[in-house]
């Protein structure tokens, strides 16, 4: 059954938003090839690219037919998982291209940065899932994009130094920061999974299988 769902779900995905955001992100990543300044800034450029792509991913759970499909037998977690599963290869491909756009000699540690990107992407989808879980809106994308952007700016400005996340490669806190990123990724993934349940009032929820 789920295989038959793949095509319709694929057609409901916001590929336009994801594509636009991905294009903007790749443009940012490509700026690392624009000479000495670009190379020096490869890490902030890649982070900006990740943020741009994450802004596209918040539209993943936009579903105008949400209230129509609320009562279908295929449980919401399965449908959300399908949407996510469809976008994961695209995200992976995008990230590979973004990394390849950065000249190899100035490329920041790939593994650690992939962790940052993963955390950002999962956070974006989780935020959208949370809005779907706790409100009635059918298109959480745009408000969540605003929220994600605001959060990113605030985090950049106000995140306490003790738990620094946005550190430079040569910074000695790099390893510790990426432990924090891993925690963030795990927490976001967990919260995201909890938020995919069909919202029902007053504990009326029972396993739908």
């Amino acid at each position, binding site marked *: 059954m789920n295989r038959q769902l793949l095509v319709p779900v694929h057609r409901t995905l916001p590929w336009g938003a994801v594509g636009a*955001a991905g294009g*903007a992100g790749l443009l*940012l990543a490509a700026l690392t090839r624009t000479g000495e*300044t670009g190379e020096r*800034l490869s890490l*902030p450029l890649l982070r*900006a690219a990740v943020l741009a792509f994450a802004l596209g991913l918040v539209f993943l759970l936009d579903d105008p037919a949400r209230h129509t499909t609320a009562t279908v037998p295929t449980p919401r977690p399965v449908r959300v998982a399908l949407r996510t599963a469809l976008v994961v290869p695209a995200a992976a491909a995008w990230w590979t291209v973004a990394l390849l756009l950065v000249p190899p000699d100035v490329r920041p540690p790939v593994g650690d940065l992939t962790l940052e990107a993963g955390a950002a992407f999962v956070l974006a989808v989780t935020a959208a899932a949370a809005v779907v879980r706790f409100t009635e809106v059918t298109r959480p994308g745009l408000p969540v994009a*605003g929220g994600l952007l605001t959060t990113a700016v605030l985090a950049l*400005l106000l995140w306490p130094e003790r738990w620094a996340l946005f550190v430079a490669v040569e910074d000695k806190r790099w390893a510790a920061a990426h432990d924090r990123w891993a925690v963030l990724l795990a927490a976001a993934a967990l919260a995201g999974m909890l938020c995919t349940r069909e919202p029902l009032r007053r504990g009326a929820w029972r396993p739908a299988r």
Partner: protein
Amino acid sequence: MTAVAQKPMVAETRTEPGGSWAAVWALALFESRRLLTRVPVLLAFALYLGWTVWRGDKAWGDFPALQDADRATQGTPLLVGLAVLLSVNHAALRSHRHGTDAHFAVLVLPPWRRTAAHALSALAAALVTAVCVAVQFGREALRPGAVGHGSVAELLVGPLTVLLFGLLGLLVAGLVRSALVAPLLIVFCLFLFVASTGTGDGGTQWLMPVVGEASTNTLPTDLIGRPAASHALYLTGLALSLGLLALLVTGGRKPVLLAALAGALALTTVGATGQSGGVSPALAKARERASVHPEQVQTCVRRDGSTYCAYPEWEPRVAEWARVVAGVRSLAGGAAHERPVVVRQRVDARYGLSGDAALESLKRPYEVTVGTQWGGNRVPEFSAAVAAVLIAGDEETATSICDGRIVPVMWLAVGWESEPLDALRRVRLNDTITGSDSVLQPTNGLFMTEAQTQVLRDLLDLPRGEATARVKAHWAELTAPGVTAAGAAKLLGLPAPEGEDKCL
């Protein structure tokens, strides 16, 4: 057809005072109120105000130089600008997003005038920013120790940035009817800010809305040489161009608009050309003169026998310097107690604000350097320089003191303060009060060994009158070259220091 009570339907036109522009104004008020209550804008203003208040007291303390304080108002409005960009963009796309296009298309006010109202709402946000900037700058200007002159053009940059970003958001809404574009644009802008900080390469950096400076040097107003007026003109022209383009994109087709756009583009070009001029020969000459021969541009006043020479804008600060000199001399013994000094204000303005060149020590006897900044650590630093010159005779010799004379020097430097230990901590490079550390001065610094620090601490632990008497009693021996820390301790009747006593 049935006869129904019918009133003749004559085509009467509802007359409203002021016509279309009055409606634009009414809509502008509506949109401004909405814009200024959007969550991102409120958040940005809260952050802006919080940041300003929190940092306001730390920046220059009670002694701001207004030619620096004006530039300090420029950075934070960028944040407001980004929030306004996002919110104006979303407001302009509101009808499109919520499907009221069909309904509102038949309403009287033409779309381009609705765009004009949105542009005015961005202006409202800029005005609120201007009020914030005025309060921020006014607070600095009203401090009793404020010197110098602010520049209106520099103060305008913050509000103009907000306007510029708002109109950019509006234009983008007219070009691309998708709400995703504004967030992506903001990511680009954010990145540009990160990238542009600390990289200044001549004319092109002035194309950015806010141009920071690498140095924290404070220069006399006429030597700063920032093309602030041209830059404000450039920003105004750019903002106007974006706004007029937005009007044209949304259907404004009046020749007046096109003419205004041409004017705005011309304004932008004039501004951009004006700001890319670089340093003029006259300015370079004036900088050279003020740096190498400050006496040619300074006026001197005498207080208590000492002479104070300051750049014209700093004359109100002479009283502060005289207070420090009096404090230092009051603790000195022998001839130093009465010795007049020449306090010479100096700054190296030759590289403008792009470099922090260290000042060379003066060679003339009893002449001591004071910088252009004051308050905080600058006070004990100047105090230490005065003390060292009183003891060593001239600044060059003073900055190479490497023996026990450091003890009386530092005693003079901090002993008169109400919190000597606090002054000591502030004057030392690493904020220490034990062990060895460097002592900062307006020109070259000194080095205190561990032993010297220990003797000084013991001296400071005595009651002030007792300590002053002991220092004055042995003034000649204490200030003789070659004295050691242990020797000084013995002369002062203090326990012999145990620490290292070897300068670098």
